[in-house]
């Protein structure tokens, strides 16, 4: 196996967005591309990541592999390497080798760890409410609501998407009109979510400039970030205040 990419920054930012959610990830390397599916320990968030082989400058995979690594270590290594990165399996050892060749030739070996056998299922929901918008707007709205509280209400009502938070005497409301969205499938819907998770997820806005928000009533939120060869989907379970 040999993968070569010049998009190290992008990989690092993706991993940084999920490093607070999961300790370790299993990287599935297949002939078509690499994928990760992971869930946070509290089972509140699910991450689905895919990077197609076209995103790599060189992509040589003979047979599918599953490589489980400590995510924090990977993030720390990615901070230390140059733009061009080569990922290999260390021959004869149970480790992933990351090579970067700038003025200095750097080589990092990261041990592979045992995967916790989990077959994670993605929520099966047909969403009737969707809004696609500039991901910077989304990140902005999450930052705005975070200054007030710990939870946010996402709501589509009429022709607008709302982010609202109330905590003690403080209130914040962010409205994004249908016209400011790239696409808008309207049906009124409303759910509450933990901002702690959303703050991490919103970091993807730095590298992928569109996000599709799918919403229901007291249903998980689905965030689709995608560009030509990269896709990151988050599911976030809602908070339900009354039952």
């Amino acid at each position: 196996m040999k993968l070569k990419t010049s998009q190290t920054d992008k990989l690092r930012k993706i991993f940084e967005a999920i490093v607070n959610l999961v300790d370790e990830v299993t990287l599935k390397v297949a002939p078509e591309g690499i994928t990760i599916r992971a869930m946070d320990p509290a089972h509140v968030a699910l991450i689905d990541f895919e990077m197609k082989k076209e995103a790599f400058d060189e992509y040589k995979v003979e047979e599918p592999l599953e490589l489980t690594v400590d995510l924090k270590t990977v993030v720390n290594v990615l901070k230390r390497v140059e733009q061009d990165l080569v990922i290999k399996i260390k021959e004869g050892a149970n480790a992933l080798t990351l090579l970067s060749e700038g003025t200095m030739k750097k080589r990092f070996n990261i041990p592979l760890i045992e995967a916790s056998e989990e077959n994670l299922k993605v929520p099966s929901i047909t969403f009737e409410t969707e809004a696609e918008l500039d991901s910077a707007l989304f990140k902005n709205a999450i930052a705005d609501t975070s200054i007030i509280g710990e939870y946010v209400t996402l709501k589509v009502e009429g022709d607008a998407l709302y982010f609202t938070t109330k905590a003690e005497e403080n209130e914040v409301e962010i409205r994004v009109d249908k016209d400011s969205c790239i696409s808008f499938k309207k049906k009124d819907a409303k759910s509450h979510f933990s901002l702690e998770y959303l703050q991490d997820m919103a970091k993807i806005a730095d590298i992928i400039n569109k996000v599709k928000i799918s919403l229901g009533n007291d249903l998980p939120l689905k965030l689709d970030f995608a560009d030509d060869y990269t896709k990151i989907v988050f599911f976030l379970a809602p908070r339900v205040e009354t039952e």
Partner: protein
Amino acid sequence: MHPLFDPTRQDTAETPFPVRGGSARCILCRGAKMLCGKASCPVILRYYQSMKVAPLIDTLELDGSSPPSVFVGRIGYPKVSVGPLIPPVHGDTSILDTPEKWVGKSMDEIVAMRSQLVRGKYSVKVDQVEGGGRLVDMVRDLAMARGPAHVEASFLKKPRGGLVLSDEVQPHGPSAPLRSLDIGSLKIDRRIERAYSDTDLPAREAVLTLYKDDVSVTQIQRSFSVGAFGEESRRRFVPTRWSITAVDDTISKHLVQQVKDFPWINEYRVYESWSLDNRFIVLQMPGSWSYELVEAWYPRTTWNPHGREIAIYSSAEGYRGRSKYAEIGGCYYAARLATSEHLAGERRQATTVILREAHPGYIMPVGVWNVRENVRAAFRERPRTFESLKTALEYVQTRLDIPLSTWIRNSRVLRDRLHQRRIEEFTG
């Protein structure tokens, strides 16, 4: 939904349990931060005045068997007072400084035990762990001793003061500046000595090694306070109150890391321990590690002296732990140690909420050992087990006076548990 679990429930006139009012300042300060702006804590002063300040020791010379025990003050840091605690009695006095054995003792017994301990004081810079002179060396050796040691102290002035109280540290008796000190033969604990003589071993490693070697938390804290651990150049005297929390924090952080690798418990459990008019209820739920200590102080208890309402405060951490010092202080770390110790011991992971009702009989602070040892005592008993959170909470309500709705409103972890859905509920 059962009305007890209704977070929007209004408390009735018969159950006047408003919260977060009244004496917030005292609960968040506990005599340590001087939040009221006075030079000394009026709450603690009141106890002093109410106590007979009969000079136990009307003399400049004192000899007795130190349990062993030492005290490192925090006033004047980085120049602090170090010295032994000495009772005017001989024999096996070890119980006097072994909080691990105090659960079940009455307030009077604790006061009687601790008030006879006279504190000798000798001023030293915190980094003078070595080369501070013979007296300092003796205090350090005493802290590492395996059992009681004969101590002869001669003071510059007669010991003064009554019982000295603090929220974190167990009380002690009058104090006096030391002129000289003599300590009979003492046997240093071999395990502690090994850590002491290893001048490359970081303090954290030393604490964890000793804990694994079954050295008691109190012994580790005692040696920690005299700068017995750590890389040579970094050794410092650590005020007793800080060393207690430092050791609780260090050990429990390590245990929590282990616990995160273990499978979840598969039922709801309720443990309990009652003492000194405190009720501790420990609720454990299947789930990833997270932990909270919620404390309810009745009016006229130590840290709610003037309030007319029960005051409730809590500190919590999620799976990732916390970065800021707990709002409610050292007791948070003491109970976290007891909790993680129990889970690590049975190789299980759980979400834990500890609910503490401090009733009016809890009239003065006795130290965080009270929380650590009560939670440990609770875990020594078989828990009641339940199949659902609802039935577990219904049982909890029969053991506590404050309504469940009030606990839930004040507990981040319980609120999360009741309101936060999980992904697998939607995977069909």
